């Protein structure tokens, strides 16, 4: 497993990093979400948003289901976090600033920007996203200097990476039934 990388402003995120036991158990749940995506014909990515040991949001890809190519696991989970804040009249910014994302695959460029916009400070992910990765693989939206796009965040990579890659390979071996061209892929 990698060590925390990225980021300017490391000191800004004053809360403690999760222990490896925490990472293991939250990532196990994220993998469960990814499996659910795979069984439903979606790109197998799953994630969890954890705020002070409480799961505020869960997500898996639902691009085909919604015909909306932006419905990645992270966006789905962020919706649940915002809903949780609304129901409890909590400030989403303050909550997100103490929320960790656990996700089976490196967030794409779009999701990395969304995480910045909501000030998520830390992302724990499984395998790299070679096609679209926004935390160093294609672009480094997580750490780039984007003063008008929220705050940079740190990431810890490599937890059960091989397994995450295997799931993606399994998915891409089947043809995406909703795409007219076999080359169209959504994650």
């Amino acid at each position: 497993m990698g060590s925390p990388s990225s980021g300017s402003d490391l000191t800004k995120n004053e809360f403690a990093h999760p222990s490896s036991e925490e990472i293991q158990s939250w990532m196990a749940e994220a993998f469960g979400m990814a499996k659910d995506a795979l069984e439903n014909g979606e790109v197998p990515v799953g994630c969890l948003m954890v705020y002070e040991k409480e799961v505020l949001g869960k997500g898996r890809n639902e691009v085909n289901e919604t015909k909306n190519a932006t419905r990645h696991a992270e966006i789905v989970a962020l919706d649940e976090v915002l809903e949780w804040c609304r129901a409890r009249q909590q400030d989403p910014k303050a909550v997100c600033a103490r929320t960790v994302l656990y996700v089976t695959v490196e967030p794409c460029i779009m999701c990395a920007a969304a995480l910045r916009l909501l000030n998520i400070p830390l992302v724990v992910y499984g395998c790299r996203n070679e096609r679209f990765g926004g935390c160093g693989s294609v672009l480094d939206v997580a750490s780039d200097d984007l003063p008008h796009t929220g705050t940079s965040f740190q990431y810890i990579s490599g937890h059960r990476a091989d397994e995450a890659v295997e799931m993606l390979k399994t998915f891409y071996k089947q043809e995406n039934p909703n795409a007219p061209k076999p080359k169209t892929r959504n994650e």
Partner: protein
Amino acid sequence: RSSSRLPEPAWSARPVLSDAQSADPELLDAFAAPIVDRRETARLVRELAAVRPLPGLRHVKRVRPCGDRGKPHPLEILVCLLSDVPDVEDRGAATLSSLLPCESFDASGLGQPFLAKVPASPPLTRPQYERASAHWPTSFHEDKQVTSALKGQLFTSAQKAKMQEYMAAAVRAAEDGRGRGMDAVGAVMVDPDADRIVATAHDLRHGSHPLHHAVMVCIDLVARGQGGGAYCYERHPACGFAGPGIKGEQRYICTGYDLYVTREPCVMCAMALLHSRIGRVFYGSASADGAFGTKYKIHTHKDLNHRFEVFKGVLQQVCSDLNPETTS
């Protein structure tokens, strides 16, 4: 002078090209020499190609006509790159024997060498070609479409009128949103084949959801029009979709659609458009962290699997007046 009709605003849609297409040509230092005996030209070209090949510089012509008509020798030949002869100390006074292996090369017909510059890579656009050729003749495979786009001649006036109409619809959406306390950003998705707007949206980040930038709303409205979608915008009447086309044909997400948006999209929205397989994007004014020209050029990134054209400047002034503080 008191006419109520405004004059047609002066704007032009300019292509947002890749960095490789817009950069100034990189130049390499080289030595050239006049050909003092024209009859030796063919032999010199052949033998120089053997002893001083120029790998990676196939776009550079070996021989050029001398620009200065007053000179006695009409042709000049590229001898070698400066990097081929690391031992040459005094560049200004280099001799043929210091540049060429005298035992295997017959330098007869060549004059005193001099320094020249050659473009390191083939030009991709006409402006690059013109700048490169000013240093040394260069071959150029012209993309006529890029050339006319750069001249602002890609679109006919009928097409420009349509583009203006679509951007004006995006501006109206932005103004509607502003009237409801939102950031003044609007977007419309257009089916260019059917010539109609399929979805209209304005920014909702200060309304329903912090990630509901106009582009994200527009993409979800397209999904709703296709029987999908994730959100409900009933409280925002200026955000809506037109439903399936006349023939009821279904597109796959935004494949082949054009997006008109008043302000250059942020990186989230730009990537959302890429994921949605957008056809083309037209934006009005630039934004500080914009991802189609300002901070990134998402649509030209070599590692991303969907490329598309982006044009900026449609109704530029009107669009930039919507958000005077964020444009640059």
